[in-house]
C-alpha cells in the first residue's frame, strides 16, 4: 500500500477493518476493563501508543530482521514498550493502573499488536505503518469507549464517576429507578459486544457471514 491512500489506511480500522468487531483481535482486554469509562480510556490510550510505536520500530527494522526469529523480536519490542507504558501509568495515574491490574501486562499478548506487525509493518514504510498502528489502536479504543459508556451509565448511573441519573430518581430516595447490577458483571460485557457487532453488521452488509 503506497502512502497516497494514507487516508484509507487511517479510516479502515474504524469501519470495515475494525480490530475488535471485524478481525476479532484483542477481545480479552476490550471486555475486562470496560466497567468504568476512565480505565477504558486509559487502556485505549496505552494500546494506541504501543501499537503506533511498535509498528514504527518494526517497520524501521523490517529489512534487517531474519525471518525465522521475527516473532521473538516483535515480542521483545512490544514487551519493552509495555514496560514503559506500565511505569508511566504507575507514576502518573496510580489508581487507574491498580484497577487495570494484569490487563496492562496483557497488552503484550494483545493480538492486535502481533496482527498489525505481521500484516502491515513488515511490508510497509515507517510512516504509513505508524499511521496504521495509531488508527488500529483508536479503532480498538472506540469499541472500548462505547462498551464502557453503556456499562457505566446503566450499571452505576455515572459517567467518569459523576452522577448522571438524578439522585431523587433512585428507589432509596423514594423514586422508581434502580441501577442494573447485572451490567457490571462480566457476562454482560460479552452480550453488549455481541449487540454492537449485530448493529454494525446490519448497517454494513458486506461484513455478514456468507
Amino acid at each position, binding site marked *: 500500500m503506497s502512502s497516497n491512500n494514507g487516508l484509507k489506511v487511517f479510516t479502515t480500522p474504524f469501519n470495515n477493518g475494525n480490530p475488535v468487531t471485524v478481525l476479532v483481535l484483542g477481545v480479552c482486554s476490550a471486555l475486562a476493563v470496560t466497567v468504568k469509562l476512565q480505565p477504558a480510556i486509559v487502556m485505549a490510550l496505552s494500546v494506541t501508543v504501543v501499537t503506533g510505536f511498535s509498528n514504527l520500530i518494526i517497520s524501521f527494522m523490517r529489512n534487517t530482521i531474519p525471518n525465522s526469529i521475527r516473532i521473538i523480536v516483535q515480542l521483545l519490542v512490544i514487551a519493552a514498550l509495555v514496560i514503559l507504558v506500565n511505569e508511566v501509568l504507575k507514576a502518573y495515574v496510580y489508581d487507574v493502573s491498580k484497577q487495570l491490574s494484569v490487563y496492562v501486562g*496483557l497488552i503484550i499478548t494483545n493480538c492486535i499488536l502481533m496482527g498489525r506487525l505481521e500484516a502491515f509493518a513488515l511490508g510497509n514504510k515507517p510512516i504509513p505503518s505508524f499511521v496504521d498502528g495509531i488508527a488500529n489502536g483508536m479503532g480498538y479504543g472506540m469499541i472500548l469507549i462505547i462498551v464502557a459508556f453503556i456499562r457505566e451509565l446503566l450499571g452505576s448511573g455515572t459517567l467518569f464517576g459523576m452522577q448522571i441519573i438524578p439522585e431523587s430518581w433512585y428507589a432509596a430516595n423514594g423514586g422508581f429507578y434502580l441501577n442494573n447490577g447485572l451490567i457490571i458483571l462480566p457476562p454482560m460485557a460479552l452480550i453488549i459486544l455481541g449487540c454492537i*457487532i449485530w448493529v454494525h453488521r446490519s448497517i454494513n452488509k458486506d461484513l455478514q457471514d456468507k
Partner: protein
Amino acid sequence: MENFINIFVQSIFIDNMIFAYFLGMCSYLAVSKSVKTANGLGIAVTFVLFITVPVNYLLNEFVLSEGALAWASRSLGGIDLGFLSFIVFIAIIAWIVQVVEMVVEKFAPALYNQLGIFLPLIAVNCAIMGASLFMQQRVGDVYHNFSDILAFALGSGIGWWLAIVGIAAIREKMKYSNVPKPLQGLGISFMITGLMAIAFMSFMGIKLIN
C-alpha cells in the same frame, strides 16, 4: 490437600479464565468451530499452562520480586527486578512453547500430530501470559506454596478447556438454527459465551474449606 482441591475447583468454575477474565478470547473464538480441534487446543493450553506458571513462579520467587536475590548474596537483597517481569515472562513462555513443541515431536508423534498446529499459536495466547501475571499478583496473598500454584495452573487450564469445548459443541449444533443474518458467526458466539458465563456465575461462593 484440601487447599489444593479448593484452589483447583475455584480456578475451574469460579475464576474461569474465559468467563470471569476473558483471557484467551481470540483463539477461543477462532478455533471453536468444531469440537475436535477445540479439544486439541484445550489440551495444548492446559499442558503449556501447567509448565509455564510453575516455572514463572520459581523465577518470581527467586529472581524477580523485591529482595528475591538475597539467596545469592546478601548485598543483592535490596534489588527489585519486578519491572522486568513482563519481558521475562513472555520470553520464558515463548521459549517453553518452543521446547515443548520439540519434545512432543520427538517423543510423542501422535500427540504432536494432534497439537502441532496449535502449539506455536499458544505463545501469544493471553490466557498463558494472564495466568502468570495473576500468579504474580496473588502470590503470598492467596497462594502460599508451590502446590497452590500447581492447583491454580492445572485448574485454569482445565477451565479454559471446558469453556472452549462447550462453545464448540454449541456452535456445531447452531449450524441448524435460524440465526438473524447480521448476528451469525461472531455476534451470536459472543452472546452465547455471555449466557454461558451467566450460568457459570451460579458456581460463585463454592468453598470447600473455610
